[in-house]
C-alpha cells in the first residue's frame, strides 16, 4: 500500500463513521453527567492528605525544638529534618496547584507532561529522601530522646560520634550522586529503573518512562 492509498483508506473509514452518527442524537440528549470524583480529583485528595502529614510533622518538629531550646543538639537535629519536611510540604502544594490547573483543552504535550509529572510525583520524594541520607543521625538523636528519653549526643562516646561523622561525610557525595542520577532521562539505566520500581511501583516507572518519551518527542 502506498501513502496515497493509506490516505484514501482513512477517508473511506471516516465516511463510514460520519454516516452512522445521526442516529445518536436523541440518545445523547438523555445524558446526565455524574458529579462523582474523577481520577484527578482523587489524586488531589491524596496530595492534600500528604501535605497534611508533612505539615503535622513540621509542627511536631517545631514543638520538639522549641521545648528543647537550651539543647542546641536537638534544635539542630530538628532543624535539619525540618528543611526536608518543608520541601516535602512545598512539593505537595505544588502538586495540588498543578492538578487544579490541568485543563484537557491544553496542548497534548503540555497536558500529558503535567499528568505524568503528577503521577511521577513520588520520584521527587525518592530523590528528596536520597538527599536526606547524610543526615540520618538527626533521626537517631531525636528518636532516642523521644522514645527512650536519652540524649544520645551526650551519652554516645567519642569513637561512636567520630564513626557517625565519617559515615555521614561519606554519604554526602553518594546522596548527591543518587539525587542527580535518579531522574526521567536516566530511566534507561537498569539500576535507576529497578530502584524506581522497587520504591515507587511499576506505575511510577511507566510514568517516568513516558516523561522521557515526551522529552524525546519534543526534540
Amino acid at each position, binding site marked *: 500500500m502506498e*501513502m496515497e492509498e*493509506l490516505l484514501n483508506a482513512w477517508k473511506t473509514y471516516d465516511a463510514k*463513521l460520519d454516516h452512522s452518527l445521526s442516529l445518536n442524537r436523541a440518545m*445523547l440528549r438523555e*445524558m446526565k453527567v455524574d458529579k462523582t470524583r474523577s481520577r484527578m480529583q482523587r489524586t488531589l485528595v491524596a496530595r492534600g492528605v500528604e501535605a497534611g502529614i508533612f505539615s503535622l510533622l513540621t509542627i511536631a518538629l517545631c514543638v520538639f525544638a522549641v521545648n528543647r531550646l537550651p539543647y542546641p543538639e536537638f534544635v539542630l537535629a530538628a532543624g535539619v529534618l525540618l528543611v526536608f519536611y518543608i520541601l516535602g510540604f512545598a512539593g505537595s502544594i505544588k502538586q495540588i496547584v498543578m492538578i487544579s490547573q490541568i485543563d484537557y*483543552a491544553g496542548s*497534548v504535550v503540555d497536558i500529558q507532561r503535567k499528568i505524568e509529572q503528577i503521577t511521577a510525583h513520588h520520584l521527587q520524594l525518592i530523590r528528596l529522601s536520597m538527599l536526606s541520607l547524610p543526615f540520618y543521625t538527626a533521626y537517631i538523636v531525636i528518636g532516642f530522646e523521644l522514645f527512650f528519653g536519652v540524649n544520645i549526643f551526650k551519652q554516645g562516646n567519642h569513637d561512636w560520634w567520630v564513626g557517625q561523622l565519617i559515615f555521614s561525610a561519606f554519604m554526602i557525595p553518594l546522596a548527591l550522586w543518587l539525587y542527580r542520577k535518579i531522574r526521567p532521562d536516566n530511566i534507561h539505566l537498569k539500576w535507576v529503573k529497578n530502584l524506581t520500581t522497587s520504591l515507587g511501583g511499576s506505575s511510577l516507572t511507566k510514568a517516568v518512562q513516558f516523561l522521557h518519551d515526551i522529552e524525546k518527542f519534543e526534540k
Partner: protein
Amino acid sequence: MKTTDDSFLDILEAHMGVIYKVSNAYCKDVEDRKDLIQEITLQLWRSFHQYDAQYKLSTWIYKISLNTAISFYRKEHRRSSTMVWNDKADIRPVIAVAAESQPEQDENIRLLHQFVAQLPALDRALMILYLDDNSYAEIAEILGITKTNVATKISRIKQQLKTKFITQTPK
C-alpha cells in the same frame, strides 16, 4: 433559543467522528472503547463552558479527545466509570454504531489501523491528525510542538509505514 445542552449536543454530533477515530486508535478492546467514548464526552462537557470561541472548535475537540485518550490508554484501571446515564438513555447504540463502523472487512483500512496502533502514543496522535487532513500549523498547535518538528516527524513516520507496508502487505 438553543440551550447550552443543545449547543453541546450539536457540536458533539458534528464532531463525533473525531471521538470515534481517536477512541478506535487508542483502544483495541470494545469495552475499553465504550469507556473511552464516555470519558471523552464527559471531558468535553466539563470543558464546554470554558471553550474560547477565538480558537477553532475542531482544535479544541482534538485536544480534549487526544489528551483524554492518551491518559486513558495509560491508565491501569480502565473500568472506572465516571458517568451515569438517565434511565431512558443507553450508551449501547452509540457503541454499536461505532463498532459496526469498524472496517474489518476492508483490508486496507484494517492494515492502516494495525500500523497506526503500533505507533507510540504521541506519534499515534500525530498520525491521526495528519490523516484527518489537519495542516502542519494546526497539528503543531494541538500537540504543542513546532511546525518543523511536525514536518520532520510526519516524514519519519511515513517512511516507517512505507517500510511496514512493503514488508507486511501481501503481494
